[in-house]
């Protein structure tokens, strides 16, 4: 059973969707959703994004060499796939995560690993390395860099899964039996830990202590970033009282650090110098930030957004809206959008669109996109570099 077949089998275990999701964990779900579904959200034309990704795949020799995530073929994860079936009928977020991995598998798995491979190819071998190790280069990418791309994806998926833990004392009876929700937590912890253990094992096999340190620190960043996503405000309000600079720090941790440090690690594996490593880091950082802002903006610019569609109340446009408006007025607007304790997202969306948050977010997205393009100038012209540029063009496109 290859990876694709494994994924195709998962829906049988997952069954039909449950009732609408509860707000108490929706911030995590919004994030998972925005992380997982890059395809439909990156531009008005899905075909354009698909084309960019498809062409990039050819450049790095996808999918045969990359789609091998060997640990996913193990007995352990087959066991988990069986166990997840028991959660059908409950509101455990692990179901949503698993479905997300199935339905958005190409986007979930492609982009981080794909970017690592592209930047590996764009950089090529360093002068130090030209005389040796060329024997294990395929399509201009070292096998150790391909392993790194897999490791990056494993860490990303592991934290996606660990995001989906529920607090047992916040459950409502409609969420499902306590025993089943407890079991869902158990499986989510074990499967995330399993992926992390495989990532650690993969790192050890790279035999490069600098890379191990880089990726371990990326994991620490990611955990802290996810923690911030989970933190409920100590006030009774449902949004954080932060400015855009704090938002950027936290978003770098949760969405940028892993890619930035993985890009840098790919350069280290090819023995590139500190300057090249830094440029790879900068590309990864700014591209990831740009992409995150793009996905945050989507709920506010799509023409046919459903009235019942919720959005992340701590996303870039909302934070910018609050910053322009002031906290007190923003809280007032939230209060006005609440009817019988239920938030009217459609009304709130209109308020935000009337402000400067959305246009500022688009500007910020383009700012980060331009910084990513600047970093690429340190790499010699090549089709891999062009592919990296096209990814930036795609995520900064809003027409």
């Amino acid at each position, binding site marked *: 059973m290859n990876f694709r077949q494994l994924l195709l089998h998962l829906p049988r275990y997952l069954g039909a969707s449950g009732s609408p999701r509860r707000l108490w964990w929706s911030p995590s779900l919004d994030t998972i959703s925005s992380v997982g579904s890059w395809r439909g959200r990156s531009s008005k034309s899905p075909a354009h994004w698909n084309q960019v990704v498809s062409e990039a795949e050819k450049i790095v020799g996808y999918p045969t060499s990359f789609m091998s995530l060997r640990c996913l073929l193990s007995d352990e994860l087959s066991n988990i796939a069986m166990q997840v079936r028991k959660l059908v009928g409950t509101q455990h977020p692990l179901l949503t995560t698993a479905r997300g991995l199935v339905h958005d598998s190409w986007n979930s798995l492609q982009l981080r690993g794909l970017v690592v491979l592209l930047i590996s190819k764009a950089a090529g071998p360093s002068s130090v390395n030209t005389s040796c190790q060329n024997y294990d280069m395929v399509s201009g990418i070292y096998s150790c860099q391909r392993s790194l791309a897999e490791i990056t994806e494993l860490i990303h998926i592991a934290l996606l899964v660990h995001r989906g833990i529920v607090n047992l004392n916040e459950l409502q009876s409609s969420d499902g039996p306590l025993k089943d929700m407890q079991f869902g937590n158990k499986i989510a912890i074990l499967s995330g830990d399993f992926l992390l253990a495989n990532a650690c094992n993969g790192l050890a096999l790279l035999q490069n202590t600098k890379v*191990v340190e880089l990726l371990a620190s990326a994991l620490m960043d990611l955990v802290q970033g996810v923690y911030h996503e989970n933190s409920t405000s100590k006030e009774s309000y449902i949004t954080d009282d932060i400015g855009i600079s704090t938002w950027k720090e936290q978003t770098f941790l949760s969405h940028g650090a892993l890619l930035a440090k993985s890009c840098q690690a790919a350069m280290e594996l090819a023995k590139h110098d500190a300057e090249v490593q830094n440029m790879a880091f900068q590309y990864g950082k700014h591209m990831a930030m740009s992409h995150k802002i793009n996905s945050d903006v989507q709920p506010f610019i799509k023409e046919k957004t459903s009235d019942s569609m919720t959005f992340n109340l701590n996303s870039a446009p909302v934070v910018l809206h609050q910053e322009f408006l002031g906290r007190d007025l923003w809280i007032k607007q939230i209060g006005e959008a609440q009817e019988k304790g239920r938030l009217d997202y459609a009304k709130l969306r209109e308020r935000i669109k009337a402000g400067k948050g959305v246009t500022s977010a688009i500007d910020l997205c383009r700012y980060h996109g331009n910084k990513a393009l600047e970093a690429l100038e340190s790499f010699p012209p090549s089709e891999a570099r062009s592919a990296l540029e096209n990814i930036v063009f795609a995520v900064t496109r809003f027409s």
Partner: protein
Amino acid sequence: MASRWWRWRRGCSWKPAARSPGPGSPGRAGPLGPSAAAEVRAQVHRRKGLDLSQIPYINLVKHLTSACPNVCRISRFHHTTPDSKTHSGEKYTDPFKLGWRDLKGLYEDIRKELLISTSELKEMSEYYFDGKGKAFRPIIVALMARACNIHHNNSRHVQASQRAIALIAEMIHTASLVHDDVIDDASSRRGKHTVNKIWGEKKAVLAGDLILSAASIALARIGNTTVISILTQVIEDLVRGEFLQLGSKENENERFAHYLEKTFKKTASLIANSCKAVSVLGCPDPVVHEIAYQYGKNVGIAFQLIDDVLDFTSCSDQMGKPTSADLKLGLATGPVLFACQQFPEMNAMIMRRFSLPGDVDRARQYVLQSDGVQQTTYLAQQYCHEAIREISKLRPSPERDALIQLSEIVLTRDK
């Protein structure tokens, strides 16, 4: 299944004994007589590391018990190693005091590794590093480092990298405890609330991940790729051990092998591989690496076997938590598996993971009526004996002798 090494921390009643080797000559074998004792040693000698593949454990234990009916009592164990305390000529000393000399500031240093800007996340991550226990795992690692260094070139110097292994071992262990507590829905640990009960399950999982990432950073900074591979194996073993616990075996022999494999992965692997790591850092000889690994493996398994015994023999007050914890989690440990031989009706309870009302109490009664506790204790003794046999291959040193004493402490502790 939560490891219960923490029990050692609370109110440890063990103290250095003043006893001498006993009446008669130092080499006296004890009540069993020279021939019987020689028979025991010969049998033990033939089974290096108690290899699972050599003989089904049920049959092995039956065979040994029938051959040596009087050796089950714990007090007899000491007589089988009469030379252990006098061999080096060193004064008898507390192995914990000896180990702590290299571990001063351990918990402060661990907290320094948890460089986090968010106060709550930092508080959660540091919560179990309270320094109130005796730190069984780091102690073993520190003693092993010195024992290997002395064996190699008589060096009395402990490397910073070796001390870092003790710190990393403690962090990996604690990270797994945080996750185990969520998995088991535990309410208390070491007499205080668990991380998940105070901060909720979502944040607790992240705290465990954070401790693991900090341990990985510290490991990478040692700068030794062999050591990174060795300790990465521990992380993998901990997860696989938890997976093994999800499943059950129907066949009696498979069940026991399954239990011991899980025991190795969840408890002994960390000790074995940490001992191996410090030996790699201190000594180039692969024979020494294997000795360190085997000592750690055997002591680690014995530790867990006794933990499982204490689940049945310690009263609630001493434990700080309800007894029969494993039965309530649906787990069949050593005493249960042995008891099942005498009370076959336990088979059905094991397969349904003690899920019917009254199963836990009935299973507990069966265990106490059987010789399951006795058999498990005996098995632990065999593992400790093997550990001592391995570590005795190293050049005599106070730390080597302390490791021998530790393996005896593992057997005689009451919590």
